[in-house]
């Protein structure tokens, strides 16, 4: 593939996937600035490692994995004080109201309280309608682990979101 063709392919990847990657990055980081930087660095890394993309239909999974790894390595903020132990919220909650009002900001606030490994699985599940098998491939973890993280992460999220006035655990005392 010539440089010109490669440039066209990269541009096509940007066209097709940048919105999804930005949203994924935003939901992971909770910051618009970090999301922009993550998205940019993901494409830069993809361009640098262009030869690694073997199957065109796996491009989104490939880019998602790059972004998630970049976030883990460089962008993740110290979580002390912001993340709550999953055990504190992961009790069974079968009576949650399905019609509880839910805004994007409330959702983000709840996501920010999830531990990183649960957050990535839950965001992929809801954002992209990914199956647990696809999530396992992207996160490079066993299927059973993904199922467990999805179950516990979603339960925690439901618990966090059903509170009408959630306690802001990130606020300074």
């Amino acid at each position, binding site marked *: 593939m010539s*440089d010109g063709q*490669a*440039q066209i392919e*990269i*541009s096509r990847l*940007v*066209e097709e996937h*940048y*919105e999804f990657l*930005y*949203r994924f990055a*935003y*939901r992971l980081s909770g910051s*618009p600035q970090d999301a*922009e930087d993550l*998205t*940019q660095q993901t*494409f*830069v890394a993809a*361009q*640098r490692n*262009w*030869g690694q993309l073997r199957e065109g239909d796996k491009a989104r999974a490939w880019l998602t994995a790059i972004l998630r790894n970049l976030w883990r390595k460089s962008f993740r903020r110290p979580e002390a004080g912001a993340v709550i132990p999953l055990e504190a919220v992961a009790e*069974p909650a*079968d009576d*949650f109201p*399905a019609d509880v009002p*839910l*805004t*994007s900001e409330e*959702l983000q606030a709840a996501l920010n309280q999830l531990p990183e490994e649960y957050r990535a699985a839950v*965001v992929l*599940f*809801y*954002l992209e*309608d990914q*199956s*647990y*098998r696809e999530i396992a491939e992207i996160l490079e973890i066993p*299927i*059973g682990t*993904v*199922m467990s993280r*999805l*179950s516990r992460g*979603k*339960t925690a*999220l*439901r618990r966090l*979101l059903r509170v009408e006035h959630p306690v802001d655990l990130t606020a300074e005392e």
Partner: protein
Amino acid sequence: MDCQSARSMLDASRPDRRDWQEPELREAAQHALNCGPCEGVLSERDIFDRRLSATMADVAIPAGLKEWLLQTLAAKPIVPPVAIEVPPRFRLSRRAWLVMAGTLIVALLGGWAYWFLGRGGVTLNEVYADINSRFPLTRERISLEHLRPFNGRFDATITDPRWIDAVTSEPVGLNLFSLWGHDAAIYRFAVGRSRSLSGLLILMDAHAIEDPPTSPVPTRRHSRYDPRPQVTWRHGDQVYVCILERGTLDEVLRAMYGGTK
């Protein structure tokens, strides 16, 4: 499968339930399809999941993001895949393989010989430990019937003049630390009036022991862990260990040397 387990597992499936046929979820799905309460809870979760999916995607894309990305990428040259020169595979000739295999075999045999045919030497403590384990303390006479006549590589003729006439048997051999011939000779001895004091006299080559005794007269071994009284001494190139069966050490030493050592 109970309700809680089924609900927990099915939480990993998508709201349209197309994952319910997956092998991991089949049993849980079967439960849910036949369980009214579970079906109700899961239906509510599906509704909530759909709403959450819509909210999750509710993220405004910054204006101009795509153009900025494209400009950034255009400014960075695409690095073509580097053709890595793989050096020609290092191949050994048949002769080299044979030499290596021969060296390895010799080394293995050498190691085996070192450990099993004869180590560089043993300490006196190791000799004591071996003897004590082979001849456990009993009230009965120590049996030597299972041992073969001595055929070791050193001269096991008793040279200590005081003990030459004390022995009452031909020597049998013992492999204490080598498989290559006997390295200890065992005699029975009996001394004293009516030869009432008896035991075993073990004879070894002093060069095979790292720390042979230096005393030419029997020296009592001071160790509370020894099951029976023992004395040891050196005469020329020979090391002697005496184990008592009948009588006391003092009686034997008095009979042989005229006093207690």
